[in-house]
């Protein structure tokens, strides 16, 4: 038994292990958190660094099977058992249609979808960007997840997989418990900054990271871990896979484990399994979406076809070989998920530009077309300048975020003209597009991405770029564009509301959002993440699958927040803690008027097609 290959946990044989309680000391940190929470067994778990991994894995498996599953539902975490059986409407998480109907009596009836500030004049640029639509797109998976009592009933009345939609009361408790959590977060930030791959996975510091992400294959082989080396975590991942397949063997799907402020979220995307372990206050759904992003990131490099293919041929293939060198892309994406509101809003932001200037740029890009060219995207940093697409072809904002991430996390495109196969998973997971990626000038922030269907198209696209640049220069737009980019954003003071610190406004129909510069109190990285965390929290409350809200005024110690969702837009405001509710409400009107006045500049109102 102990000689068993650690990469391929054999569930069947392991279940036969019988151990006395004293010898059951799994040293699997991730699962350990979970055991601490659900500590029904009262076992004492100590780490045993000297012990062989195989033994550890076996013990852990045995332990999980022996101890975890007979969890009683009354262990305190679930207050709302009945909601488990609430059927998901149309298999969708966001009951979109019902919401719309509910919201038709919106306080500003004029602002129906399509007429809100920032709404595009013609068709939208993106695939329609409803919040959470990315999860609903995976409806077939969600539908499976209704909880069934596993066979052999008395052993486990409910497996650990049950989802626990939380009541507002619970959320409030959570909010009160927040300060302590924040202290921890700050400590952690001090202790370790960037990626620490060599980190000891048995150390306390490793366990204290706010969010772990693991990717593994169905054979339990490690593919990616955010912290610590994959090798050191192979036994942990083996256990995770064992847990997933054990629950699946009972014709069930494990989605998450909630415990003592920790959430362990599982996303099963055959042939991969993604696991997130988080002690942020993000909802399970948000975490699942983040895992989905990581999944798509992997798909964008390989295509699902290739992924399936390699695992079809060899089930225990080590995918790290094919993904070599892409870890920093995933790391960077995880960072973006923490600090870029666009990723949870399902929206994209653009550089504020006079509309006349943007139109010239767009039409120059439009003119530089080629037969197989599908999308032309001009970026300035992580903001969109303009996007031109083939008629009837839409780019999904998720794909665009993946492109941002690709360009943003590599300096290799500054060396010359890049030419790379890329899969846009929301467009088609089966095939590659070919992207011509280059900066307009070596020192410039302006990056042009031309996406073609033909892998022989490099010089055609290179020529498109030359024609585009020529056209810009001929109309002396290039200089104007460079100058406009010196101020890539705007200060919130332009709005003229003194108490307002920051806001995020998303126009639903165009899938674009606008947001001022991050103000002084939030400029440090951890403060910025905290602010985004607050927005994200409000976002998840507003889009709660069973209890969506339209309007939240949230008073916290360091700021007051207000969020409002209508059929046309989503709005998140951050006020100084001294502001009052009345002030905040009056600020909304003023802000909306301001955005309406500036919409030419803040949004792309007339998207172009070839």
């Amino acid at each position, binding site marked *: 038994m102990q000689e068993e290959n650690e990469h391929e946990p054999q569930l069947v044989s392991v279940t036969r292990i019988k151990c006395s309680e004293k010898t059951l000391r799994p040293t699997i940190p991730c699962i350990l958190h979970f055991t601490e929470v659900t500590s029904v067994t009262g076992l004492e778990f100590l780490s045993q660094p000297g012990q062989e991994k195989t033994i550890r894995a076996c013990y852990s498996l045995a332990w999980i099977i022996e101890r975890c599953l007979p969890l009683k539902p009354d262990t305190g975490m679930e207050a709302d058992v009945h909601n488990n059986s609430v059927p998901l409407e149309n298999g969708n998480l966001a009951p979109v249609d019902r919401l719309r109907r509910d919201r038709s009596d919106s306080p500003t009836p004029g602002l129906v979808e399509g007429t809100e500030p920032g709404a595009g004049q013609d068709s939208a640029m993106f695939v329609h960007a409803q919040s959470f639509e990315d999860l609903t797109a995976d409806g077939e998976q969600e539908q499976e997840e209704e909880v069934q009592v596993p066979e052999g009933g008395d052993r486990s009345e409910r497996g650990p997989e049950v989802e626990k939609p939380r009541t507002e009361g619970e959320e409030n408790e959570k909010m009160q418990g927040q300060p302590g959590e924040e202290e921890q977060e700050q400590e952690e930030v001090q202790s370790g900054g960037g990626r620490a791959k060599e980190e000891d996975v048995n150390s306390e510091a490793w366990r204290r990271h706010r969010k772990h992400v693991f990717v593994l294959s169905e054979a339990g082989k490690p593919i990616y871990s955010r912290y610590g080396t994959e090798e050191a975590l192979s036994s942990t991942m083996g256990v995770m896979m064992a847990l997933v397949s054990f629950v699946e063997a009972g014709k069930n799907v494990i989605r998450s484990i909630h415990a003592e402020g920790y959430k362990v979220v599982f996303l099963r995307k055959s042939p991969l399994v993604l696991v997130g372990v988080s002690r942020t206050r993000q909802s399970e759904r948000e975490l699942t979406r983040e895992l989905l992003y990581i999944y798509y990131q992997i798909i964008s*490099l*390989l295509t*699902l*076809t*290739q992924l*399936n*293919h390699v695992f*079809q041929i060899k089930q225990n293939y080590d995918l790290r*070989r*094919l*993904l*070599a*060198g*892409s870890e920093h892309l995933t790391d960077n994406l995880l960072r973006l998920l923490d600090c870029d509101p666009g990723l949870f809003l399902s929206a994209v932001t653009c550089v504020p530009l006079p509309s006349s200037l943007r139109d010239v740029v767009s039409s120059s890009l439009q003119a530089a077309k080629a037969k*197989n060219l599908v999308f032309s995207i001009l970026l300035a940093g992580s903001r969109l300048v303009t996007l031109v697409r083939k008629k009837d072809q839409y780019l999904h904002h998720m794909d665009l975020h993946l492109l941002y991430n*690709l360009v943003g996390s*590599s*300096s*290799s*495109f500054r*060396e*010359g*003209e*890049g*030419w*790379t*196969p*890329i899969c846009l998973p929301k*467009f*088609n997971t*089966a*095939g*590659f597009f*070919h*992207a011509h990626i280059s900066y307009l000038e070596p020192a410039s922030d302006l990056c042009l991405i031309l996406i073609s*269907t*033909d*892998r*022989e*198209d*490099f*010089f*055609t696209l*290179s*020529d498109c770029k030359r024609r585009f640049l020529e056209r810009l220069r001929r109309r002396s737009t290039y200089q104007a564009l460079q100058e406009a980019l010196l101020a890539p954003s705007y200060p919130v003071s332009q709005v003229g509301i003194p108490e307002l610190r920051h806001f995020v406004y998303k126009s639903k129909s165009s899938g674009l959002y606008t947001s001022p510069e991050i103000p002084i109190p939030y400029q440090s990285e951890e403060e910025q993440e905290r602010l985004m965390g607050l927005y994200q929290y409000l976002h998840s409350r507003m889009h709660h699958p069973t209890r969506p809200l339209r309007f939240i005024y949230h008073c916290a110690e360091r700021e007051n927040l207000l969020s409002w969702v209508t059929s046309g837009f989503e709005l998140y405001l951050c006020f100084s803690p001294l502001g009052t509710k009345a002030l905040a409400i009056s600020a909304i009107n003023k802000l909306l008027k301001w955005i309406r006045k500036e919409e030419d500049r803040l949004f792309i109102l007339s998207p172009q097609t070839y």
Partner: protein
Amino acid sequence: MSIFLNLGIHQHIIRRNCEFHELWKLYNIEPLFSTGRNMSSQRVDAKVVLLGKEYVGKTSLVERYVHKRFHGGPYQNTIGAAFVAKPIQVGDKVLTLGIWDTAGAERYEAMSRIYYRGACAAIVCYDLTDSSSFVRLKFWVKELQNCEQQCKIYLCGTKSDLIEADRSIRQVDYHDAQDYAEEVKAEIFETSSKTGRNVDELFQKVAEDFHNSTAFQVMTEEREMDQRQRKSCCHH
């Protein structure tokens, strides 16, 4: 919804629900009538491709040659491939080298053919301090010998500055490498992108060999023919 998937010069419309393995097979098909014409442009005289295992320093080599600089920073892997055109003086002529710096990562291997197809020279790199990179080099040399016979091969041992600092870390013996080079009729250089040693010499050699090659002669003749034809057209 049907999706365009491009297979070289042939376009197939493949339905989304197409069987995955079939799609894979389709996707791996090499174009039947590949001429390499598309991937080499008129503005380039000679297509040069860099091949080799990841982290051997292909990008650094190009960076040193083209921009005369060396990044000491953290390793950044190339995504896909990067193209740079660089003019070079040979005798009294100026040639333009179109240099393809390819990614070493395995996932781009299936794509590599479009980069070396029609190349007149391939610089296959290996890391002098990493014997596995030399094993990989042999793979690329075989690949070139099978698919691209007219392509001249240059072996390039990188990071020679590290060897100079500490001889014991050399893992690829100079004589072994030289023997292998003779066997496959390749030129061999040991370079350092950090100090610039042998880098210009390598590319100069590539350009000179191309200049003296038949391909170049044919090309210039064709051009002259073109010009003559044009002239005669003007006369009439």
